[in-house]
């Protein structure tokens, strides 16, 4: 085997391949986008472990785009239509970065949205910042995302320190409203960026509120058996159980908790897996009385919500949820900013986004009253609500219970959970 000859053999073919690729690329990069279209790149997980929620986000965006285009597009740009380009991040940061580079440089998008997984959002927004492309983050809750000093990042959802803050505020209000004493808490969370971030804050909040932490248990989201974790919960006998879970483990955990007849006064999820449409179906009656914190719920008391939700449901077979609502709103925020900017100049678009004060329109089905970004790009008014899963005669549903002003009329939360 003559290595030398073989070596150069391959090298020659390498030339051919490189040449061919260079030619294709060269040709490809000369293609430009037409002016009457606004191109928006969307980097979301369409395969991999978060595929379910990625799909929901995609569907919500599609629906918003259809409506906006049907209503005449962006009028200040001569009726320009919105065009969405989707890229699969596979929940992997390097894919997100690669797709961001491609969307910006090859597809020449004017804006970006994404990425759901915080780990993907960090570096991807850095790419957008480098190129000056405005990036709307519908839902990636990690605080850090709007704390990197980037000028082009705008986030719609609340950051995770608000989520944890509200979970504890809810507990305080429930204690007062129902005169129940809560002394001990247990933290059980998925061992990722999201879970750990929440846990850090819970510890501080619990300390401030005077609760005793009887269990601090990270668990691998891909565990095949969660009985050991449930046993620890059962033996720690907490009053309150706080959870951060993805869909599969949320289902497994809920079912296992029911099997072991774990009795706590309250269980509070943190959105994510608990808010996934599969959760209710798969956990069934075991999920009854669990509280969950979300940006949004189908019974939010806002005009137009039931209609828009019904439309979404009839198109895609399931209800809107936090991610999809924020994605839907994000598209309307973009449309609104484009109208005010009246141009595709990224600096002008960014300016318009920074001065957003959206209070009406189909996009405002969010539970709060306005979308307005602070100097860091964080939506100031993003608010959260707590729902309780219960069956009041029409099957299992998620019922908004907190803040009290948003509570569904005629419903009294069941607190504490019935001790069967």
């Amino acid at each position, binding site marked *: 085997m003559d290595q030398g000859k073989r070596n150069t053999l391959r090298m020659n073919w390498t030339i051919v391949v490189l040449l061919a690729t260079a030619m294709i690329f060269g040709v490809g990069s000369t293609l430009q986008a037409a002016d009457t279209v606004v191109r928006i790149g969307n980097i979301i997980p369409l395969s991999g472990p978060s595929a*379910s929620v990625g799909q929901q986000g995609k569907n919500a965006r599609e629906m918003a785009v259809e409506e906006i285009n049907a209503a005449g597009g962006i009028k200040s740009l001569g009726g320009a239509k919105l065009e969405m380009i989707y890229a699969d991040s596979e929940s992997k940061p390097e894919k997100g970065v690669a797709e961001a580079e491609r969307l910006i440089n090859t597809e020449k998008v004017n804006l970006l949205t994404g990425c759901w997984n915080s780990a993907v959002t960090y570096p991807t927004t850095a790419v957008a910042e480098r190129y000056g492309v405005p990036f709307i983050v519908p839902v990636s809750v990690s605080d850090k995302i709007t704390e990197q000093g980037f000028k082009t990042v705008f986030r719609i959802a609340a950051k995770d320190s608000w989520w944890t803050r509200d979970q504890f505020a809810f507990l305080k209000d429930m204690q007062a409203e129902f005169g129940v004493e809560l002394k001990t808490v247990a933290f059980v969370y998925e061992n990722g960026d999201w879970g750990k971030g929440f846990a850090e804050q819970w510890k501080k909040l619990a300390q401030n509120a005077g609760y005793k932490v009887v269990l*601090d248990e*990270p668990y691998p989201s891909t565990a095949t058996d969660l009985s*050991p974790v449930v*046993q620890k919960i059962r033996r720690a006998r907490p009053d309150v159980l706080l959870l951060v879970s993805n869909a*599969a483990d949320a*289902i497994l955990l809920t079912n296992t908790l029911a099997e072991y007849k774990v009795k706590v006064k309250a269980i509070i999820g943190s959105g994510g897996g608990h808010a996934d449409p599969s959760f209710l179906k798969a956990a069934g009656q075991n999920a009854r009385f669990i509280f969950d914190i979300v940006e949004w719920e189908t019974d939010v008391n806002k005009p137009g919500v039931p209609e828009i939700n019904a439309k979404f449901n009839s198109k895609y077979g399931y209800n809107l949820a936090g991610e999809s609502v924020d994605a839907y709103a994000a598209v309307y925020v973009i449309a609104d900013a484009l109208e005010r900017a009246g141009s595709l100049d990224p600096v002008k678009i960014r300016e318009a986004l920074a001065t957003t004060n959206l209070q009406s329109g189909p996009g405002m089905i969010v539970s709060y009253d306005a979308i307005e970004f602070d100097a860091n790009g964080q939506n100031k008014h993003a608010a959260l609500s707590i729902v309780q899963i219960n069956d009041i005669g029409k099957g299992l549903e998620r019922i908004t219970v907190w803040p009290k002003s948003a509570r569904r009329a005629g419903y009294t939360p069941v607190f504490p959970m019935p001790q069967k």
Partner: protein
Amino acid sequence: MIYILEDAINGILMGSIYGLTALGLTVIFGVLKVINFAHGSLLMVGMYVAYWSIQLTGLHPYIALIFVVPVMFLFGYYLQDIVIKPIFKAEKDVREPITVIIVTTGIWYILDNLTLLIFGPQYRTIADNPLRGGMLEVGEMLISIPKLWGFVTAILTALIIYIFFQKTRIGRAIRATSLDREAASLMGINQYKVYNIAFGIGTAVAGVAAVTLVPFYNVFPTVGVLFDIKGFIIVVLGGLGSIGGAILGGIIIGLIESVAPQFMTATWTEAIVYGLFLLVLFVKPSGLFGVKYDW
């Protein structure tokens, strides 16, 4: 220390199910001498087959075995026959066809994502099945009934497979081939047919494991990945090709997973399992019950 007893019981039950998932793997590994990276995917396919057959017919989950086992056997048989056999033929002289590992990985990617494409990413469970959520109360301890069923099934299956390999003609032919394939073919045993059957059996056993899991577990396209690596660890732990070793290896893993978290966070048990695995590999690579084959 009733806690530890309760955890140990759960560990044994769950572990036996792990062992069952690894049983098919050890059969294939032991006979064909290759790492079948598609095993987790085969388990996943079994779970979907079980899921749909229970959903559509409304039968008791374990009755679905009647349907699942033959389907999975045929699936494995023809998978080996059509996709993997050509490589064996091409690499006749190579002792350990590494290319088969790659092919099985390719099959894994294809199966998982084809399932994603066809069935979507949702998590499914069988909501109303008689086994769901049943717990046996023994004093202060709670024992999961579906896992108990799984335990019994695992032991029974292991026994059946063992008897099959020891007493039946086909079983002995398979064992002969696994020990020395040239000698076996000289005896008139069709090597490739043996491989097909072995693969079919391994896949059928995965189907049984799937049926035990479906009553209390989630079904989704990438569920197999979770059991894949664990399966290999168990096989090595128990000893390549050893049936009892697979079940026992599974139980050991189950015990670690259930008891260790009482003393540390659940996330460290993964590290312990890998550490134990490496330890066994270094100290006694043939595993607890394996024999040092010279292949």
